């Protein structure tokens, strides 16, 4: 059924035609039947905050479609984008597992269908299904490695130009869940301000530096698509 938000409503995980394409949902038939019994499906408009930093965990949220921005803020109030979560990712895992307050905020970027599983049901789900536990582990390791890359980018890059170059290289390299990529073409779902929040800079500086990279023919921008024309020079800028 088509919803007013412009996407197909899929309330039954067992019969979901795209379940096998979704990382967290691609589990055994027994596990997916259990997931179907344990979850509650909701629909939210863009801008909805699923949970906020400092809030006690209630459970985990599985994005059925759309995207969510996951961010945290430093003591000085600076926003740090941790990731853009895509369909098939689970959110709020670490707070639910560690039974402590969320360290991040999850904000929907688009209208989304979200499956929610209460903490108690989630614990039973991962206890009963080994593949579900492995999927959870995979998601946690991806989140942790993304945060480590952020630490490396912010803490070990000298200039903002170097940080930006590192970020672009990271996107073209190992962060496949973050961005759809074909060769060196990237669909960049971030605004300049959001890129600035990732590398600890300002929107103006990011706009200026991307302009300079274009001028030097290192990258090319076509709408939201970024093409790395000269990866070797980008590597030099990143200090690699």
């Amino acid at each position, binding site marked *: 059924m088509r919803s007013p938000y412009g996407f197909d409503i899929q309330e039954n995980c067992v019969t979901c035609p795209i379940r096998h394409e979704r990382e967290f949902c691609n589990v055994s038939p027994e596990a997916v039947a259990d997931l179907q019994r344990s979850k509650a499906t909701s629909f939210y408009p863009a801008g909805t905050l699923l949970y906020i930093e400092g809030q006690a965990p209630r459970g985990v949220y599985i994005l059925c479609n759309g995207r969510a921005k996951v961010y*945290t*803020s*430093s*003591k*000085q109030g*600076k926003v*740090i984008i*941790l990731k853009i979560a895509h369909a098939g990712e689970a959110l709020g*895992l*670490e*707070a639910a*597992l*560690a039974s*402590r307050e969320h*360290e*991040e905020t999850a904000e929907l970027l688009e209208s989304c269908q979200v499956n929610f599983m209460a903490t108690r049901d989630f*614990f039973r789900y*991962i*206890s009963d299904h*080994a593949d579900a*536990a*492995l999927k*959870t*582990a*995979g998601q*946690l*390791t*991806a*989140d*942790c*490695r993304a*945060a*480590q890359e*952020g*630490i*490396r980018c*912010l*803490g*070990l*890059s000298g200039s*903002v130009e170097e940080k930006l170059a590192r970020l672009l290289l990271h996107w073209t390299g190992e962060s496949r869940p973050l961005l759809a990529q074909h060769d060196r073409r990237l669909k960049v779902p971030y605004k300049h301000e959001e890129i600035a929040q990732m590398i*600890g*800079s300002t929107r103006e500086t990011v706009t200026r530096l991307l302009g300079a990279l274009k001028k030097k023919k290192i990258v090319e921008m076509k709408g939201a698509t970024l093409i790395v024309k000269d990866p070797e020079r980008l590597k030099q800028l990143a*200090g*690699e």
Partner: protein
Amino acid sequence: MQILSFTLGLKVDKVSDLGLESLLKVVVMQKQVFFPTGSVLFREGDPAEGAYLILTGEVGTEMESPQKESLALASVQPPAYLGLVDSVAGEKYSCTGRAVRDTRGIFIPRSELLTNFSQPETKLELLRALANEVSGSYKELRMVRDKHSKRSGPRKRISQPSA
């Protein structure tokens, strides 16, 4: 403690005369590794072949840039896992672990870690440990963000020259 008994392959019911705690102590003594102050447990970039369960001492972690600049991260206090995320992911160690004080721990090979994810008794403990590593990385990221921010305070207002 659940993961210790499984990691070490203990059959507790076969040795019911011994209490679990005392049995674990004996086996832990046999399996543990010792790192004197200053020695390296693992290096950044090496294949992550397993994680350490730190039992005593303290381990400092650091990242290095290609220009060999170093960034000190939080130190790990026992009891805690070290290198767990990298080992589960089957990637390279993302940092270097160095004993800040004399340290004792147990090395758990990657294959055993993955086996433990299918054991009902140990998977929750491992997932909680992974969740703690994620949480620790977020804390570290926030600290680095503040430390390396260009402007740490509000922008100064430029006063208009008086007419």
